[in-house]
């Protein structure tokens, strides 16, 4: 299994090309999670707290969007960002930013739906206390998000896992350009298509290790935070 060894060697020797791929994968997926959180958490919290006609339908649709096929998201973002599309003048297609946009679209519904569930449960518990303390709507949202922060970390991790694992969206909008938009998953797809299955497997194992490491980091932070804040 020469490819297997070489993938491992590439990691151990800190091969700059591989490190660049790993770095881009992390930058794209983490940026997407940050942006998706900025959109999804307030949206999910608002949906948890505000009653309006059609709210149940919005929740059903939002939950369904958690399972958006990456390739469909990729295609939609591709059509929007293409020079012939409505946002073509931004010149973002086949850049890392396009990949961040696509993954943000993919991840935001996951974070919003999980936030909605978390905040709604916490709201049931806090409603009387916060009402009795005369806390206004903005204060309520802020309090609930802050007190749910450890549960919300789980939502962010779910989003990150989804982003880090997907290939369908970023390969369409990023183009898998060597040294520019090639990530772990698109590299794996490429090596598979070149028939270098051992290298593809090696890269896959590297990806799994990275995802586990990020999760372990977040889990440790969550435990430490919970111990301090209860």
């Amino acid at each position, binding site marked *: 299994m020469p490819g297997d060894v070489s993938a491992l060697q590439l990691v151990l020797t800190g091969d700059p090309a591989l490190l660049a791929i790993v770095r881009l994968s992390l930058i794209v997926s983490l940026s997407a999670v940050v942006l998706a959180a900025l959109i999804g958490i307030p949206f999910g919290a608002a949906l948890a707290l505000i009653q309006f006609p059609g709210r149940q339908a919005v929740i059903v649709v939002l939950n369904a969007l958690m399972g958006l096929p990456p390739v469909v998201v990729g295609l939609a973002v591709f059509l929007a960002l293409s*020079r*012939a599309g409505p946002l073509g003048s931004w010149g973002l297609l086949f850049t890392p930013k396009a990949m961040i946009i696509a993954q943000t679209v993919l991840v935001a519904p996951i974070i919003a739906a999980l936030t909605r569930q978390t905040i709604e449960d916490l709201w049931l518990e806090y409603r009387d206390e916060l009402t009795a303390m005369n806390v206004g709507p903005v204060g309520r949202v802020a309090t609930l998000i802050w007190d749910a922060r450890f549960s919300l970390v789980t939502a962010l991790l779910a989003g990150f896992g989804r982003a880090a694992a997907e290939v369908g969206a970023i390969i369409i909008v990023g*183009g898998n350009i060597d040294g520019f938009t090639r990530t772990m998953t698109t590299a794996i797809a490429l090596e598979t298509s070149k028939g270098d299955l051992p290298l593809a497997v090696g890269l896959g194992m590297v990806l799994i290790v990275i995802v586990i490491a990020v999760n372990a980091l977040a889990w440790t932070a969550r435990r430490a935070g919970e111990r301090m804040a209860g």
Partner: protein
Amino acid sequence: MFTRRLLMAIAVSAVFAGSAFAQDKSILVASTTSTQDSGLFGHLLPMFKAKTGIDVKVVAQGTGQAIDTGRRGDADVLFVHAKAAEEKFLSEGFGVKRYPVMYNDFVLVGPKSDPAGIKGSKDIVAAFKALKEKGIDFISRGDKSGTHQAELNLWKVAGIDIATDKGPWYKEIGQGMGAALNTAAASNAYVLTDRATWLSFKNKGDLVIEVEGDKRLFNQYGVMLVNPAKHPNVKKEFGQQFIDWLVSTEGQKAIADFKINGEQLFYPNASDPGA
């Protein structure tokens, strides 16, 4: 240290939109999986960059998709291998001019056991007829790529209307060359592939070359600048520099010098006006 840089990068990428990447000296080339997967670009681009300082970013797609990318204005240069589709692209005004660059050839690969009994033949048309008559498993790219179009053309030459004559033996997978080869290797089927991808492919399994050397298997590559009149964002100077270098003596020699296991993969022929 790393974390801080990562956070910086996230912040930068999240805050700025558009400008940072667009300004650098680079072009985007839509090309085919065969040129990319064979390693040809890995061989050519560093030389070109050393000479001109221009960064060439390659999006490897099937020829059909690559031409569509050019039509949308999402690439500066097309480097593909489907002459008829390229000429249509030109006639529609999406391209400026087509330059022949090089050719390689297709080969028909299949299982060592050769159930179709065609091994060693130089007649690709006879081989295709045998596959159809015996109903031997055949993997088709089915993705409108240059290789797929070449395959469809060979069926036509063999007098077979594959759209109506295909049976369960004819499997369209709608994926790239590598995926088609992986599928053929896994299911002991025949598949038409370009030689470059075949030579660099690492999961051959029981597959061997069955038919090669037929002139009808030659595969001409052309390069075109996307028409700046249609898409003003096209970087015409850098793009034209790349094209000029490919067809120059230096570029042609670089193509001829690219070898895998001592075997030359692409044959430069920019000087052949009919190619």
